[in-house]
Structures are given as structure tokens and as C-alpha cells.
């Protein structure tokens, strides 16, 4: 498994956080997509959306409920337009979409992952992200070792998670 894309994603997300960007993008690969969905689940990023070279519209990234109670009944106001679009039949010549992400055979090469970064009190929630297993020193771990790591114990070369918010094992 190549770690190049992962390493690049780590650096890129750190740099984007330091630059206080609200939205950034990464190549759409299944590996990065899985990783970022896990990070979203654990609260390190706001949202992960698949889009094209240009960022998706705000409504497609973070659909929000209207503050007007009357308007909440209107589905189109708080559902991503993409979701509405995918309900329509695909355009002629375009392959069927996969997973409802709007990814087709024609546009798959140009798809990117759009990631909403999180900040709190002017500090990024995702401060540091780095590879533990590197091409020069691969690290493999089973569940018992990961449990020890989470408890703060050193496992081989890997130091335990001893800082508050010092990381998660997804």
C-alpha cells in the first residue's frame, strides 16, 4: 500500500489548518475518502463531500435547516441540490452514478474530496496529523497493541496517546 497519498494528505490538511482555510480539497481516492469519513465521524473535520475541480455549492456541503419554521417543510431549502439532481435520470451518454455521489465514469478522474475544516477559539481542531507507519519504517499493530496505545502505553516505536485530545485510533 502506497503511503504517498496519505502523507500528502496529512501535510496538506495541516497546512490548510495553519492557513485557517475553511474548505480544502484532496484527490478522490477510496483510501482518503474512507480516512476522512472516519475523521468526520470522530469530529476532526466538518464535512467531506465529493465534488469537481470547483468547490461544491455551500448548500451541497453543509445543508442547514432554515431558521424560519415555515420554510422547513420545503425540502429543497435544506437538501443538497446534488441529491435532487441524482434523483433525475442521468444525462444521455453519461454512465450511471455510483453511490449517489454524482461520480460517473466520465467525470471520475476530475472528482475531488472537498473537506470542511474545523476551528474553535481561533485554533484549528485538527492541529497535527502525521503518519505513524512510514515507508522507511512500517508499523503494524493488532487490536491489543492499539488498545495499549489508546491507554497511553508505548507500543514498540510508537508513543502512546498521552496528551489530552492527542489523537484517536479510528
Amino acid at each position, binding site marked *: 500500500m502506497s503511503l504517498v497519498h496519505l502523507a500528502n494528505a496529512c501535510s496538506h490538511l495541516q497546512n490548510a489548518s495553519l492557513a485557517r482555510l475553511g474548505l480544502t480539497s484532496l484527490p478522490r481516492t477510496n483510501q482518503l475518502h474512507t480516512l476522512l469519513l472516519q475523521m468526520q465521524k*470522530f*469530529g476532526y473535520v466538518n464535512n467531506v463531500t465529493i465534488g469537481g475541480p470547483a468547490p461544491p455549492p455551500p448548500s451541497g456541503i453543509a445543508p442547514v435547516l432554515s431558521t424560519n419554521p415555515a420554510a422547513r417543510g420545503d425540502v429543497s431549502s435544506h437538501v443538497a441540490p446534488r441529491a435532487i439532481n441524482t434523483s433525475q435520470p442521468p444525462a444521455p451518454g453519461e454512465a450511471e452514478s455510483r453511490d449517489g455521489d454524482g461520480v460517473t465514469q466520465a467525470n471520475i478522474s476530475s472528482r475531488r474530496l472537498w473537506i470542511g475544516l474545523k476551528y*474553535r*477559539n481561533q485554533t484549528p*481542531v485538527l492541529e497535527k496529523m502525521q503518519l505513524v507507519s512510514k515507508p522507511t519504517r512500517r508499523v503494524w499493530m493488532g487490536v491489543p497493541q492499539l488498545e495499549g496505545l489508546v491507554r497511553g502505553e508505548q507500543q514498540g516505536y510508537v508513543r502512546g496517546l*498521552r*496528551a*489530552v*485530545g*492527542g489523537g484517536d485510533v479510528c
Partner: protein
Amino acid sequence: MKASSLVRATAAGPPKPYICRPCQRRFLHATKARRGDDDERSPRPPANPISIAGVNMGTSLQPNPSQPSVPALPPTTTDPNEITAADFKSYTPAELSQLRQHYTPAQMRAILASERAVSPHDLATQTKFRTNDPWAIDYATDFAHHHPVLDKPLRAPDSHHDPTQRFKTSEEIKDDVADFITTLPDEPTGKEFLDWRDNRARLMVGKEEAERDPIHYMSPEIPKGIPGLADRARKKNKTPIADPTSSSGQPQRQEEEVTPALARLMKQTGLTSLEIKKFRTKLLVSHRVVNQTRLGKIQSLYYLAVAGSPSRGLLGIGEGKSTEANDARQQAIYAAIRNLTPIPRYEYRTIFGDVKGKVGGVELELFNRPPGFGIRCQHLIHEMCRCCGISDMAARVGRSRNKMNTVKAAMQALLGQRLPEEVSKGLGRKLVDARKVFYGGNV
């Protein structure tokens, strides 16, 4: 702890007391250890055979014809740790009939039930003397009785404390004696006096139980929950003790001279001089510094001080520089007090997670540690921990170990702690302190 008396009795010969089986083992051991230490003591027959914990006799014992109801202990030459299950035999019909003479049917049923409940194998394997482990005791006991010298003191309840207790004056004692004499019967015997002296006469004024059964003063602790005591302590602190030298009888507080620097500090911080005095301060770094001018070298003294409040978790560092040492010291201490900031402390004793700090070439790491670990840090960080009330912490100072930068980096690290609440809010996830959950919030 009647073990010693029993041991003496068994060592001296018959009559032998009843001893439960597990105790036999202990007494055996003790008998061996103490044999010959006080043989002159007359053996004391047991007044009540069931006064000793347990009632059962080991039936491996040889029945003593002269004392049919009191069988002897096993031969004392046997090593107590070599007794096997086979040594504990069940009662013979003859022994049972002997026991029936002593015990009621209900007691007999209890004896036989307990006999069935404890297996000889357990007795042989689980009642060994602990000799090689750190918690082995060096005296023989079955723990059935309390020994005030060897064991933890038994405390009378706190209500037996009377803070107003005092000795009677000679007048009051005279009155007591007079009362006693007036209540004497017409034909007094010595008994009345003995009874009065032992049971009725009192030397103290106050609660009777405070005199007869006082709380233990060998290792006293301030009793809690006594009405009036807390008020007395508070009053005592509030009203200063009158100075006997003052002619007017008014308490005179020594007025501290408020220097301009102190006045400025008081104004800036809004603290009184007494509050300022209460902070814990320590001068950590001092050295000479030199400014080279065209007129020559001008020498000054540099001081770095820390101030803090262990109870409130405050810490501040301050620097002072002056040609006068006293002035520089004072500047440093006052600057430290001015810079006091709260330090987050986990359970008021350690830090939240491991933190890093870097100032100049000093790169240090502070590690949180479990309760009772202590402050295992180098001296500068140790003093800082003492000032802000951290009691469990470790530290590693890497690269440079410059004193001034070490203090500054430690301060930076202490202030750079990430708090679980903040992390939790940032992640939008609920974080739970497993320690608090485990101990039900009692930590």
C-alpha cells in the same frame, strides 16, 4: 488478642484451653517461638471454653486422661507449615459425648455444622503461617481481639470529646469529698470508698464520657461534627490575642510599613498586604548582568522569582533587575505576584495530559502522573509545582538546561495544557473521564 495468654498457658502445660483449629496452628507456632520466655507464670484455665473464637478441637490431638474434657494441643515440635489434611480428623464418638457434656444441643449443632463447612484440606493449605511475604505479621494472633499496642487504635466516638473540659479545682474536689461523706451509710465499710473512688469520683469538669472513655490521644485528629468546636476555632482566628504588654488591653496589630512598591502592587492587583504576604514565593534564578556603555561596564543583578498559591492553583513568574540586590529581588517577587495566572490542574494534583514547552534552547516535556507519584522533576520545575499546588508530575528537560529559560518553558507548558472540555467542544463529541466514572465521582 488473647493469644499471648493462651500461648503462655499452653507452654506451661495442662490444663489446655479450647482453641479452634486455625488458631491452633498459630498458637503452635507461637508456642515454639516463645517457649521458655515466661514459664513461671501460672497457667490460667479458661473460664469459659467458648470465649475463644471457634469451638472445635482438632481430633488429631491426644486425649489427656487427667483432663478428659480439655484435649491437648498437637505436639509442639511439629512444624505448623507441614500439617496436612490428614492431621485434622473428625470427632470420635467418645469426643462427641465429651463435648455434649459441655455444650447445649444448639451449640453442638453449630459445632458440627461448622465442622462440615470447613474442609481439612482448606485448613491445611490455607492456614499456613505467612512468613516470607511483606505483610506477614511477626506476632501470633487470630485477629479475634484488638490489641491496643500492636493494632490500630480503637477510637471512642467523636462525641466523647469535650473542648470545654478542665480539671476540677481543689475547692470542687473538696466539695465532692464532702458530698461523699454526707451520703455515707451509718455503718460504712471500705467498700463505699472504693466504689466512689473507682466509679463515681471525677477529676474533670465536663462530659463524663470525655473523661471515662476519651477519644484516643495517641494519634489524635481533630474531631469533626462537634457542635461549637468549629465556631470556637473561627472565633479564635478572628479575635487576635490581646497583647499583654499593651496597657490599654486593646489588641495591637503590628502595622507593616507599606513601601511605595508594595502600595503600587496593592493598587494594581487589588490585594491587601496580608493577601500578598500569603502567596508562596521563591527566588529561582539570580545572576550578575553587565551593560557595556562608553562609560564602562555597569553591573546589575538579575533575579527571577515564582509566586503561587497551592490551594488556588495560581502561578506567576517575574523578573527583576537592579544595581541593588534587594531592589531586584523585590521587583522580581512583585512582578511574579502581578503575573499570577490560574494553572489548570487535573484533580487538583497533576496536569491534563503530557505537554511540551520550548523557550530558546530549552525544550521540555511535562508528564501527568497517578496519585501519590510525587513531584519528580528537577529543582526549578519542582518549586513551580509546589507553588501552584501540583503534587504528581514528572518532567524531562532536553537540549539546553538554562535556568531562566527552563522556568519560562515550564510556565509555557503549564499554560499550554489542552482541557478535555475544550477538546470535547472542538470535536463535538462527549468525552468521559474514565477515572471519575470508575470511582463514582469520588476522586
